[in-house]
């Protein structure tokens, strides 16, 4: 069966520091991968999605970037964090052939101080 991992689970970082959040999927090949940010009362905002290695689509201009160095690995990064980057970050995957459902990871709670 497929599983999705995210780490770390929680992170407290100072403003101006770099960020790297990692997401990996097991049990499937060539998945579509997604990064979302969940803000209280605002639902889930799609940040990036990827349909293959090195292929990244950005949904909103922001201080973050994403990379997909391996088929089942998706990384969310920032060179310099802002206070507004605080939030709950969710990684998700779906089958590439037919996106009938997205499967979500446990999330990372990021607090920028």
């Amino acid at each position, binding site marked *: 069966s497929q599983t999705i991992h995210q780490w770390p689970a929680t992170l407290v970082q100072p403003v101006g520091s770099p960020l790297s959040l990692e997401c990996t999927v097991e049990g499937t090949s060539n998945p579509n991968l997604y990064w979302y940010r969940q803000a209280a009362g605002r639902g889930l905002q799609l940040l990036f999605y990827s349909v293959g290695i090195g292929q990244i689509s950005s949904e909103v201009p922001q201080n973050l970037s994403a990379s997909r160095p391996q088929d089942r690995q998706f990384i969310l990064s920032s060179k310099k964090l802002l206070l507004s980057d605080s939030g709950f970050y969710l990684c998700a995957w779906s089958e590439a052939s037919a*996106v009938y459902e*997205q499967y979500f990871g446990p999330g990372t709670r990021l607090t920028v101080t």
Partner: protein
Amino acid sequence: AQSVSQHNHHVILSEAASLELGCNYSYGGTVNLFWYVQYPGQHLQLLLKYFSGDPLVKGIKGFEAEFIKSKFSFNLRKPSVQWSDTAEYFCALSTLVNFNKFYFGSGTKLNVKP
């Protein structure tokens, strides 16, 4: 642009009460519709989905939703809620044109009092 609206941000019910959570969307073409649930401390998980066919879809744990195309709505219902239904519920849509993108509503927090 596509969007999903959930107007009930916080709902409080007693056990055995009936539930209906509203979801409206804006998009003129064919949509796929979803309800996701996030129980406290757990992953976001799929409750039910609609792609085509019978507009009344049944999901897990006794939930159902009805797609009314003329009203651009996909409301979630349950005849009798339980304390264990306390969670946050999200409506989402994707389109045939761009099925990779899911658009989520802002969520509804449901609190069921025992």
